[in-house]
C-alpha cells in the first residue's frame, strides 16, 4: 500500500461519531466506578470520597460466598475447557485435507456460540432436573459441566489460531532426530503452544465469569454466583455497595483480558 494520503481515508463526521462511540462505551463504566467511591448512599449527590462501600462489600458474607463460588467454577470450567479445547485443536489442525466428519466437529464445537444462551439454559434446566431427580446429587458439578461446555469454543479459537500460525519445521526436525512422537510433542509442540493455551484459558475464564443466564437457570438453591447474585439484587434498592462489587469484578476481568491481549499479540 505504501504511503497513504490521509484525506483519502478520512470521511467527514466519522471521527466524531467514533469519539461518541468511545464516550458511549466508557461513560457508563466510569460513572459506575466513580460512584463506588461516593460517601452518600444515593447517587443523587456527591458527599465526598469514601471507601466505606468497599469495606461493606468485602465484609458482606454473602458477597464473599458468591465470589468464591464464581472463582471456583471459573477455575474448574476454564481448566477443563482448555484441556479439552487443546486436544480438539490438535486434532483439527495441521492436516492438508479435512478428515471425515471434521466439518461436523467444527459445528459442534461452535454450537454454544450460535444458540441463544437462554435456549441452552432451558435445555440444561430440563436435562439436569432429570439427573437431579434420579441421582439425588445437587452439587456444583452441574454448573461446572455447563460452564465447561460453554467455554470450549472460547478456549478453542485462540489455541487453533496459534497452531495454525506455528512454525512446524521444528517439529519435523525433532522427528528427523529420532524423537518419539510424544517427545516431539512434549519438548517442541507444547512449549510453542503455551501462549495460545494461556490465551485460551484466560478467555474461557472470563467467559465463565460472564455466564449468567445459564447459571440462573440451572443453579440449585444456595448456588448463586456473583452475576446471578447481582441480578437478584437489582430488584431491590441499590446502594453504592453494588458499584464497589462491580468495580472489583471489573478489575478482575480487565486483568484477565489484558493478559489475553498481550499474549495473543506476540507472534509465534
Amino acid at each position, binding site marked *: 500500500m505504501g504511503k497513504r494520503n490521509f484525506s483519502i481515508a478520512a470521511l467527514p463526521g466519522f471521527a466524531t461519531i467514533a469519539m461518541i462511540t468511545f464516550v458511549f462505551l466508557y461513560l457508563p463504566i466510569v460513572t459506575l466506578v466513580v460512584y463506588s467511591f461516593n460517601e452518600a448512599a444515593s447517587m443523587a449527590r456527591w458527599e465526598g470520597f469514601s471507601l466505606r462501600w468497599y469495606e461493606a462489600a468485602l465484609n458482606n458474607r454473602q458477597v464473599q460466598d458468591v465470589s468464591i463460588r464464581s472463582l471456583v467454577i471459573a477455575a474448574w470450567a476454564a481448566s477443563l475447557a482448555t484441556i479439552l479445547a487443546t486436544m480438539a485443536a490438535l486434532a483439527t489442525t*495441521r492436516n*492438508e485435507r479435512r478428515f471425515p466428519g471434521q466439518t461436523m466437529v467444527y459445528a459442534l464445537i461452535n454450537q454454544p456460540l450460535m444458540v441463544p444462551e437462554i435456549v*441452552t439454559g432451558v435445555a440444561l434446566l430440563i436435562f439436569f432436573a432429570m439427573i437431579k431427580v434420579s441421582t439425588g446429587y445437587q452439587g456444583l458439578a452441574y454448573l461446572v459441566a455447563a460452564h465447561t461446555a460453554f467455554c470450549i469454543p472460547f478456549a478453542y479459537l485462540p489455541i487453533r489460531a496459534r497452531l495454525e500460525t506455528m512454525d512446524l519445521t521444528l517439529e519435523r526436525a525433532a522427528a528427523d532426530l529420532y524423537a518419539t512422537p510424544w517427545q516431539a510433542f512434549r519438548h517442541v509442540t507444547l512449549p510453542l503452544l503455551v501462549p495460545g493455551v494461556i490465551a485460551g484459558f484466560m478467555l474461557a475464564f472470563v467467559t465463565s465469569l460472564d455466564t449468567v443466564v445459564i447459571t440462573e437457570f440451572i443453579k440449585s438453591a444456595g448456588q448463586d454466583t456473583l452475576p446471578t447474585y447481582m441480578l437478584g439484587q437489582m430488584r431491590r434498592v441499590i446502594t453504592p455497595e453494588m458499584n464497589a462489587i462491580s468495580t472489583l469484578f471489573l478489575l478482575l476481568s480487565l486483568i484477565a483480558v489484558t493478559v489475553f491481549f498481550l499474549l495473543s499479540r506476540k507472534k509465534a
Partner: protein
Amino acid sequence: MSAVELAPHGADTTKPKARRGDIAWRWWLVMPALIVLLLAASGPLLIVLVYSFLEPGNFGGVVWNFSTDGWFQVFFTRDIFDETLVTPATAHLDIFWRSIKLALYTTLITAILGFPTAWFIATRAPDVRPIWLFLVTIPFWTNLVIRTFAIMEVIRNEGLVNNVLRGVGIVSAPIQMLFTDFAILLGMAYVFLPLMVLPLYASMEKLDFKLLEAGYDLYASRLRVLWHIVLPLVKPGFIAGSILVFIPAIGAYVTPRILGGGRNLMLGNLIELQFGQGRNWPLGSALALTLLVIVVIALLFYIRSTSQPEGQRHG
C-alpha cells in the same frame, strides 16, 4: 507440502493405512470435547423438543402424556369458559414482534455507530490499531450484569443524565427513562456494540485504499465513493456483524429484565416465566424452540448471503 511432515506423530499419512490411523488418532483427541458438548450443550436441545410435546405438571415439570398444547399455546389462547373458543395469543405475538423489532433496532443502532468507529480504527497507523481495538473489546469482556447496571446508573431517575439535566436547569423533574423500551434499546446497543465493530473492522482492514484513490481521481464525490466502493467491499463485515448482534439481542434476557422492569418483556423473559411462576414447561420449551427457529432462519440467511459469488464483481 504433504501431510507426511505435518502429522504431529510423524505417521506417513499418504499411505491409506497410516491415514486411517491418523484419522482414528484425531477422533480420539477430539472425542472428550465432543462428549462434554453433547452432554451439556447440544444433546439437551433434543430433550427440549420432547418436552414441548408433553403435558405440564402442576408444580412445574411435565406429565408424560403426549400433547400439542404447548405449541398451540405459543400462538393461540383457548377461552377459559368455552374450550372451543380459540383466539390468537396476542400477548405472546406482541412479545415476539417486540423482540424482533427491538433486536432489529439494536442492529441498526450498532451499525450506525459501529461503521464510523470501525472505519476510524482501520484508518489509524497500523501499530496503534490493536490498542483502539482493545479499547472496544474491554467493555465486552466485562460481565453483562455489570454493563447493564452501568447503563442503569446513567439513566436512573437519580442517575447521571438526570442529575446533569437538573443541575443545568433544563428539567425540574427527572425524565423517566428506566423501565422503558428506550432503556432496553440503549442497553442492548451498549452491550452488543463491540460485536458489530469487530467484524466491520476485519473487513475494512483488508480494504485496498487505492480503489478509493481511483474513485477520487475520477471525480467521484465522497458520498459516491462511500456508496459505490466502500460499502460493497465491507458488506461481508456488515452482514457478519448484524448476525452477531441480532442473535443475542433477540434472545436477550438480562438486559430487558434489569432495564425493562417487570412490564416491558422480551421473548427471553417470557420463556423464563414459564419455568418460574408460569409452571408451564411444555409452553416454555415450545417458546424456546420458536426462538431457536428464528435464530436458525437468521443464520441461513447469513450463510446464503455469504456463499453467493457477490464479491466477484469487485475482483
